[in-house]
């Protein structure tokens, strides 16, 4: 059954976009993709750079760092050092996707399939997004944040606001709850709640920092319970609630940055899956279009050309190598799952008994909904793909003069490689683990942070800079200890810098 192609020209028009969207939506529906409604916005290259600079948030608050990123992107774009991404999509309901006007018709169709049906269904289906973000409220919340911040700027001066935002940005990665479930963002109540919160928060803080003298017997240092009782991983949350000298508006600002960090947290954990899923679907959907005769050979060649570029994995010794390409890994894994469902080999049956000869759409959907990168790789990376990508495992230990090759793509190596690659996508492993350990509540109010060192990996150079930022929020002395797994302190940093009294 061949139909007339939707278009033969490379130029796009809004009518054509609608035609393609209609057909792609029909096919996506046939494949059982569940999506938010789409809001597709056509923008110019400059607007794309804007969107880039404000990390894809359509209504970001103003901050110099976004200006810096914009200047940077603009510079390299103008010099031709980098192309702009073809698309940008926002996890919101309706799902907002940007199409750049420079794209050809084929590229626009690719982007529609990739973003508006691929990413979109991922946002709607994956458990992390369901649990941590509320797509219907994010845009409202951003509007609230932008207005609130600009109000603060008027009231307290740009410099004050900027100083605090700088500090919060530095702690953004430490501003997320990794395990605790957050309350959903809801703008309707947000404004009223914000005012109530101001008063309540301040009263809580006052309670904590009460200056009424404490009976002698309670003061003995050894018996004193630590505050907080359990170490806290969410630094921004802790500061919002407990930093002694902050004004209510400053707490609200911390909260805004924290909420935004939390909103982006699932995206950082599902890079491979999200991109892999979107690539798998643009490939599948556009091929389905082609099979029905709705697009021409030329169209398909252009699609395949950019598709292969996107999912190319350069080998480790290539000048183009810059780490494992999440698009390549994700796409190949998705295709691999489909293959295992449809045509399992003996090896697959042994490794994936739960996939072999099942309905591929259901199995793939299940994988998309219930995993994040780390667990997805641990569960689904197949020996066949390890062989295809020729993955190998090295151990780079600074106590040894050479790097050791531990495993390669062979029978003995599969399991170890799978585990090591999975670990590589564990955010807890990629970023230092930093916790609020103790506050000297009754004394100097000094704050102790702990960095729990894994595999003897130390903190990077910027650590001292960040302590300054933390100091500017907490406003009492800060101590950061690095401890190893057997609780020995291996390094200490102070802000303000400690005098040399104990050495």
């Amino acid at each position, binding site marked *: 059954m061949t139909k007339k192609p939707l278009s033969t020209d490379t130029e796009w028009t809004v009518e054509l976009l609608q035609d393609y969207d209609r057909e792609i939506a029909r096919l996506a529906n046939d494949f059982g993709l569940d999506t938010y409604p789409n809001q597709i*916005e056509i923008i110019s290259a400059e*607007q794309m750079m*804007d969107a880039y600079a404000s990390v894809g948030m359509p209504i970001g608050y103003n901050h110099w760092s*976004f*200006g810096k990123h914009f200047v940077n992107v603009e510079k390299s774009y103008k010099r031709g050092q980098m192309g702009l991404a073809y698309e940008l999509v926002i996890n919101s309901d309706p799902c907002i996707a940007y199409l750049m006007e420079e794209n050809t018709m084929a590229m626009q169709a690719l982007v529609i399939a990739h973003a508006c049906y691929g990413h979109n269904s991922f946002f709607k289906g994956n458990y992390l997004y369901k649990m941590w973000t509320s797509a219907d409220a994010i845009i409202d919340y951003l509007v609230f944040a932008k207005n609130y911040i600009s109000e603060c700027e008027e009231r307290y001066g740009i410099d004050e606001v900027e100083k605090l935002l700088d500090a919060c940005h530095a702690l953004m990665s430490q501003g997320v709850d990794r395990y605790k479930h957050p309350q959903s963002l809801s703008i309707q109540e947000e404004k009223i709640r914000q005012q109530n919160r101001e008063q309540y928060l301040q009263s809580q803080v006052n309670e904590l920092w009460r200056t009424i003298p404490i009976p002698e017997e309670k003061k003995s240092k050894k018996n004193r319970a630590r505050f907080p009782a359990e170490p806290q991983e969410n630094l921004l949350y802790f500061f919002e609630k407990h930093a002694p000298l902050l004004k209510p508006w400053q707490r609200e600002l911390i909260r805004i940055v924290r909420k935004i960090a939390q909103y982006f947290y699932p995206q950082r954990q599902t890079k491979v899956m999200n991109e892999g899923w979107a690539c798998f679907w643009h490939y599948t959907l556009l091929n389905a279009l082609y099979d029905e005769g709705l697009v021409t050979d030329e169209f398909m060649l252009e699609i395949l050309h950019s598709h292969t570029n996107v999912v190319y*994995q350069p*080998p*480790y010794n290539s000048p183009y190598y810059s780490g494992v390409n999440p698009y390549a890994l994700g796409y190949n894994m998705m295709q691999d799952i489909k293959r295992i469902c449809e045509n399992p080999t003996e090896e697959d049956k042994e490794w994936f008994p739960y996939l072999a000869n099942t309905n591929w759409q259901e199995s793939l959907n299940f994988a998309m909904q219930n995993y994040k990168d780390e667990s997805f790789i641990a569960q689904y990376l197949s020996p066949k793909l390890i062989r295809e990508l*020729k993955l190998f495992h090295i151990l780079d230990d600074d106590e040894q003069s*050479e790097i050791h090759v531990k495993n390669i793509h062979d029978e003995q190596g599969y399991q170890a490689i799978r585990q090591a690659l999975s670990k590589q996508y564990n955010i807890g492993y990629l970023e230092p683990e930093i916790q609020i350990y103790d506050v000297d509540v009754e004394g100097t109010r000094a704050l102790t942070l702990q960095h729990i060192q894994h595999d003897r990996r130390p903190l990077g150079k910027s650590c001292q800079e960040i302590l300054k930022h933390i100091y500017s929020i907490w406003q009492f002395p800060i101590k950061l200890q690095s401890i190893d797994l057997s609780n020995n302190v291996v390094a200490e940093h102070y802000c303000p810098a400690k005098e040399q009294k104990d050495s």
Partner: protein
Amino acid sequence: MSQFIDRRLNAKKKSTVNRQRFIRRYKNQIKQAVSDVVSKRNITDIDQGEEITIPARDISEPQFDLGEGGSIDRILPGNEEFIPGDRIQRPPKGGSGQGDGEASNSGEGEDDFVFELSREEFLEIYFEDLELPDLVKKELAQVTDYKYLRAGFTNAGIPANINVIRSMRQAAGRRMALATPHRRRLKKLESELEELSNQIPCDAEKVKQLKERIARTQRKLKSVPFIDTIDLRYNNRIKVPMPSTQAVMFCIMDVSGSMDEAKKDIAKRFFILLYLFLTRNYEKIELVFIRHHTSAKEVDEEEFFYSRETGGTVVSSALEMLNEIIDKRYPTNAWNIYVAQASDGDNWNADSPYCQEILNEKIMPLVQYYSYIEIMPRHHQSLWEVYQRVQESYPNFSMENIDGLSDIYPVFRELFKRKTA
């Protein structure tokens, strides 16, 4: 159903605020960079944007990260030669670590941050200390007068701009393209008809048919219009900035030993400000640099600002030379003449009355504007007094005692008032 929104027309320059914030935040670094740049530039090149470099460490946004060291497991793709148990030499540090994403990340971070200031931003920052009134800032940054120049052709426009030759050529092309198939068919039909009518038993039915077809083709040929709206071509005119005419600017500076670098820097800004003002108003500007101590010399800009002399000061030598150059090279009917003089006020006492005489009788009638700054926060000498007398008789003579950069602008107050009003 998806909704499509075309956003291309709105929200332009959304990042402008953030860009301004960025510049605001790094004002000191940028200012430093700007003043470094200006000291390397000629006066005539002042009027451009500039690439500004800020050290990367100043603008980094720190995040907690892991440093080098410890024991790290890595998975890399594309193994060709390794088997378990192989040992690999560590790639040298600082090189683009083979297969090490982190190495390239930190390598990138150490480049300085370079970005381009627009002309407006550049001037804004450069003149910040001068406390220019807003109107003047605008005047300096903007190009006000325009003229229209021809710039090719367009296919849309007003009837008055129709270009007849282009349009007819377009029409001829279109006619040719549209009519040729018909004409070819007509030719063929006519030759068939001729053949047919030459045959002795003439097939009347066929001839009639052919004639009908010929008539139809001829109608079609006629229906190709001689000229159509799509043929029309219009002369395209674009607006270009047009300063009015030409001016010459004389920079006169005392280079006796007492003029140090700081004073010269003030003088340079003073000259630049006048130059910029002139570029807004004149198409062509020539600069003449005259420096003097006891005798005057015409020099190039490099020598003007950067060479030092010692000795006494005889201002009249420069004024004589000025007069001479105007006479020889810049007839007043063709040139607008502006003079900017900077000095620390030293002059040989007996020379001052002569200066007044030259100015009053020879120079002032020739020039548009004469501005004098004395860079010296102390009591004035005879030169200041005689210049004050000149100022009384000529409103286009202005003088100012300069203490700091913000004092420069008042010298030009009258000048700008006249032109911007």
